[in-house]
């Protein structure tokens, strides 16, 4: 839920451009030729920094061309609390997000093929209100699970979220329960559910569908955790380890199965999917 104040290294695709030929890595400041940068895509060849991707960019590098069919594109934000923080209403904020991103919600869902294997897929988009879990987000993720269940297709969810969407209050919190109920049905029915955790996957999203997978795949150096770093430091009054809440830290502590470089992600998914005997 801390996506508003977060001083992010991710500065958007244009700011990193030095001139038209070079991209400056937002993390290590290395100059990377733009062809190399976008081929990776958006991964620094030197420090393996993985710049965030939009949902469309992610789908482009994951799903076989021409096979993606989007679900429920019309599902959008709801404002159950008629929320306003005094300066700005949630409604206004959401409208702005829609205009900026061309999306109606923080997740894009649909059906498509990965290396010729049909899957149901949901990809979160951090640009849309920090990828927060609103009722529309939860609804789309649940409907995806539901589709995967009915058609007996593996379900793959790419997470990228600061957590719950506090403007939707308790209704947002309940999306944790709602999405997990959908995932639980997949587990019971023996349908693969693969969770891919990308930077960042925190708060209520980490504590629901993102951490309930058969297999947890993370991108290198992705921030993954429940509580915010600052809250923890205030609570325990001590400094946290440098790699705290990184994908690598979670791998070491037993919560991530595989860390896959972005260029290997599609192939990793494809290989894993072949182990399911439908």
């Amino acid at each position, binding site marked *: 839920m801390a996506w508003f104040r977060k001083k992010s290294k991710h500065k958007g695709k244009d700011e990193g451009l030095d001139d038209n030929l070079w991209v400056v890595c937002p993390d290590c400041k290395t100059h990377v030729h733009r062809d190399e940068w976008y081929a990776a895509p958006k991964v620094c060849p030197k420090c393996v920094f993985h710049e965030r991707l939009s949902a469309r960019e992610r789908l482009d590098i994951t799903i076989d061309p021409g096979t993606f069919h989007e679900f429920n594109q019309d599902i959008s934000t709801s404002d159950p609390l008629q929320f306003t923080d005094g300066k700005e209403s949630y409604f206004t904020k959401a409208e702005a997000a829609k205009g900026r991103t061309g999306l109606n919600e923080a997740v894009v869902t649909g059906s498509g093929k990965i290396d010729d294997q049909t899957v149901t897929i949901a990809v979160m988009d951090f640009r849309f209100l920090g990828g927060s879990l609103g009722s529309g987000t939860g609804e789309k993720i649940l409907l995806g699970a539901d589709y995967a269940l009915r058609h007996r297709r593996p379900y793959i969810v790419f997470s990228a979220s600061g957590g719950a969407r506090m403007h939707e209050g308790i*209704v947002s919190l309940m999306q944790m329960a*709602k999405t997990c109920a959908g995932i639980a049905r997949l587990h019971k029915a023996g349908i693969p559910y693969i969770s891919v955790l990308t930077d960042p996957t925190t708060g209520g999203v980490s504590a*629901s569908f993102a951490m309930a997978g058969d297999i947890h795949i993370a991108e290198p150096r992705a921030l993954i955790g429940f509580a915010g770093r600052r809250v923890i430091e205030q609570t325990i009054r001590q400094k946290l380890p440098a790699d705290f809440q990184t994908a690598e830290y979670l791998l070491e502590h037993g919560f991530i199965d595989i860390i896959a470089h972005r260029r290997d992600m599609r192939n990793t998914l494809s290989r894993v999917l072949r182990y399911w005997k439908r």
Partner: protein
Amino acid sequence: MDAHQDFDQELKNIEGKIAELTRLSADDSVQFGTEIAQLEKKKADLEKTLYASLSAWQTVQIARHPQRPLLRDYIENIFSEFIELHGDRRFGDDHGLIGGFATIGDRRAVLIGHQKGRTVEDNVKMNFGMASPDGYRKALRIMKLAEKYRLPVISFIDTPGAYPGLDAEARGQAEAIATNLAAMALLEVPMLVIVSGEGGSGGALGIGMGDTVMMLSYAVYSVISPEGCASILWRDGAKAPEAADALKITAESLKKLGVVDEIIPEPLGGAHRDPRQTMENVKTALLKGLKKHARFSPKKLVETRYEKYADIGRWKNWW
């Protein structure tokens, strides 16, 4: 954190006077019957004024009131037996989230819930009711035991939130809560949830997916603490009252939002003003809930629970 006293300080003064006069009347030499009656009247009027239209923030103060009944009070007063079970069989035994076999009326059940302390010492031990992954995993183990023994689960929620500590993160706070949510969705026994005090975000929900979710009338339940929300959205923690209001965290708001099924009435001013009556109300509500859900087959229970949660925030509901 003594805000709870700010708005009912006057009431406390009057109550103090009544107590004093009553004590003096007891030795027979002087009688203050009239004065007492006047004060009682004044108290009743004031209560109505004070509590008739509490702000959300005032409700938060009542929900956090240091004299508010805690899980242990309910265990002692409305359960005729409690056999505590310990440990997650993995790492430890969380004292801030407890569970065990429990009998209420003529019904046997499994009880889980957050356990806050009243003394500083207790609160250190119980971590102010902020559970660790070990707590959520213990709760899960006990819920699965309930399933094996075919007992309903009663879950008491009273937590500021899951513990935000280094160890809790390292041992998988997120995974523990996520796993519980998926497991509760499939639990083949009735699950009754009571938000009895603070319902703090994922830390509350981690043991809180119920066939019936009940809430005490002055309890609160929120996706984030009002202070946390204020400091993020208002960039000023002092705006917590505004945030509390905006977040719609009271029982009545939550019932309208379809997240709470039933409100259990508290005495005017809060449970701490008449704990015994409050606990009686909880007992009645629990027995009613246990009776109601005992009728359903495991399959029906799980289906209904799924539909219930799938329905929260259904897109068309708001349009």
